[in-house]
């Protein structure tokens, strides 16, 4: 009897610059090293049955990623977590894990909100103008932005995805917190929001020096946010 498990895992500082594909492959290799009874797809080129909630860009760390994995038979979740922990590379840790039923909706389909923290080094004199830039963004009714991808350009309204950014002072600059909506028709990356803040709202920061960390992924409705592990 095959069994499906959902895991909450991290992408720490050590693996911040690893791409999503490479991150997934590292986890697959750890699963193989840990000798968990992973289920494989049939066919000529079998692959491990693993699915992730959403991709992270190169350079973005995360405190809470989610993945579903299918095993060929049921296992004690604690033993499974321990086996994996012994084999995951530095920076990737299992925070929580639990069995989910095969009927559970795919992670990709249910997650609709991502929270981020952006750490910005700033000189002391820039703190005031930076706060003002953030408030002007928050006050704007609409923020047009041209999204470019290999398929072409498309104008979007940043506000459709991010209604508010909050700013907190830190020892060497500022920390921005934002929640980004993930919709069936698209979303926006935190780096793009930062670019908009710098280009359109004169945020006095170097986007290259920013450190972006995903702090959570959620299934949200008008009133609540729950983690995909608590559905």
């Amino acid at each position, binding site marked *: 009897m095959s069994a499906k498990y959902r895991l909450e895992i991290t992408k720490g500082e050590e*693996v911040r610059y690893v791409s999503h594909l490479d*991150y997934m492959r590292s986890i697959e*290799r750890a699963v*193989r090293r840990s000798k968990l009874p*992973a289920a494989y797809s049939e066919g000529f080129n079998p692959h491990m049955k693993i699915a992730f909630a959403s991709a992270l860009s190169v350079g973005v760390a995360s405190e809470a990623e989610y993945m579903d994995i299918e095993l060929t038979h049921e296992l004690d979740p604690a033993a499974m977590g321990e086996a994996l922990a012994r084999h995951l590379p530095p920076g990737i840790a299992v925070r929580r894990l639990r069995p989910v039923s095969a009927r559970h909706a795919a992670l990709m389909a249910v997650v609709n909100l991502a929270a981020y923290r952006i750490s910005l080094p700033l000189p002391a004199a820039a703190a005031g103008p930076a706060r003002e830039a953030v408030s002007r963004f928050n006050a704007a009714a609409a923020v047009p932005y041209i999204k470019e991808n290999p398929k072409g350009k498309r104008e979007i309204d940043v506000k459709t995805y991010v209604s508010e950014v909050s700013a907190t002072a830190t020892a060497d600059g500022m920390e921005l917190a934002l929640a980004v909506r993930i919709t069936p028709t698209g979303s926006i990356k935190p780096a793009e929001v930062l670019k908009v803040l710098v280009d359109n709202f004169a945020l006095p920061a170097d986007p290259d020096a920013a450190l972006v960390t995903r702090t959570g992924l959620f299934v949200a409705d008008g009133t609540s946010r729950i983690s995909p592990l608590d559905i």
Partner: protein
Amino acid sequence: MIKIPPAVLSRVAKPARYTGHEQNCVVKDSSRVDAAFALAFPDVYEVGMSHLGLKILYHIINRRSDAAAERVYAPWPDMEAEMRAAGIPLHTMESFRPVAEFDVVGFTLQYELSYTNILNMLDLAGIPLKSADRGEQHPLVIAGGPCAFNAEPLADFIDFFVLGESEEAVDDVAAAVADWKRAGKPGGRRGFLARAAAIPGVYVPAFYDAAYNADGTLAAVTANHPAAAPVVTKRIVADLEHAPYPTKPVLPYLEIVHDRIMLELFRGCTRGCRFCQAGVLYRPVRERKPETLLRLAQELVDSTGYSEISLTSLSSADYSCLKDTVGLLIDRFKDQGVSVSLPSLRIDSFSIELAQEVQKVRKSGLTFAPEAGTQRLRDVINKGVTEKDLEEAVGAAFRAGWSGVKLYFMIGLPTETDDDIRGIAALAYRVLDIYREVKGKRGARVSVSVSSFVPKPHTPFQWYGQDAVAELERKQQLLKSLFKDRSISFSWHDAHVSFLEAVFARGDRRLGEVLLAAWRRGAKFDGWSEYFKFTVWQDAFNETGVDPHFYAGRERTADEVLPWDHLSAGVDKSFLEREYRQALAADPTPDCRRGDCRVCGVCQGLGVDIIDWGTSS
């Protein structure tokens, strides 16, 4: 410890090349061991991480308690620019310590066109490029690998070379460095070099002087130091069964060139292709036992989690227990999602059977290397395959369901005529015909890849004058004009690259200045077509007054002193001469593996034997 600013990492391509923390990497406090090695690969991370030799060195040094080995690769030019702008010196991936703080910096020499990267890495490390300019505070700069067998173009830059297989030599070098340091570095750098020169296989170029004749040819390379042997002979591992093998390799995050388990079945090759340098340098054949391979494979699967085992060797299909071993490996690992692959296949139907068994090849298509287009020329180069072999193999492949075949050839081989070039095209068309005969319809795809022959030191063709670039290009065009069928795709290598390879492969010490001049003009990553600029090299030759044709295109006479005559691979020069004469007469030499010893000198001179388990079972 060096910290790379996030702004730098967010601007460069593939930042994971530089951030380390890979699984299985060994992090010691290298400042607290007696011999700290920075193992340097003069190419980008994805290439360097794929190199088995470097993994072996890393493993052997790190199992010593008095030594540490860390890794460093050439930063890609975008990263190099950032490092220079931010004043970040070249550093290792384990402890992020500057390379200049290590006791030893060891370069792996795989390819002549990586030489400028060595200079660039030394410069990025802040280490004086020339040995003569280094002081007591600088690391010892050493090098090994196939190109060390003609060390002369790098003689000014490398403190010492290690010739041959390094499994045992690296322990000797580490012990010597540790002893010398514990003794308070008696005699300083020169004192250490004298100790090193006493280690078999170690070549200290500063202990030799080169003298030239009026016509520019070499008169002699003579030792000027009592510790220096007149001829330095390669190291060899007689017993591969018990040699250390890296079964816990560093696991990259990035996808590297060979991103899979590499299982070395055996070392050496005795087929005796006359163009092949590896065939000489790694003589004789020494096989591992199937049960040993199975054990190593199990350890590798357990420590890496890779899903593919690639059976590597110079010609894996020659492994005497191949079929059994492949079967054993497939059985053992199939339930763990681990597949087996064979990267290089000889042309015969046995290989097709195996290829079917391992399946994995189907994705990439089949590759054959007839090397030359006519039987006469294949006899000249001693490539022991016939057109009938090719026909049978390709027919078997088509019957087994393949429809694409890659064919590798060389042009510019000794005695080559235009008929031989036409023979290449004829073979490609023959493959299309075979498909029609087997399948009763069209539909095969043939890709023909042609490189230009580079005469290499220590081979029977070491005396041969390379075809001029214009002649190679004419032959490429001739061949191109013969391919009119859309089912055949044709690709060829830049002849200028092969020319430069030949210059450095057969160069002497006077090329050191050319390397410096080219590097100063910005040459680096010359092996990458997007960075190779021949005009930079032309300017460097002009500036230094060195004529490259003297090295690449000149036929050398049998009595000429060659720049590598004082470096021995164990194979007698007289054997190579005999082979060259036989080549010109299109007279093949059979494989020496099964009892027909041609007395090349290796087994006799180095006290080793061919180890072939197929004969004893």
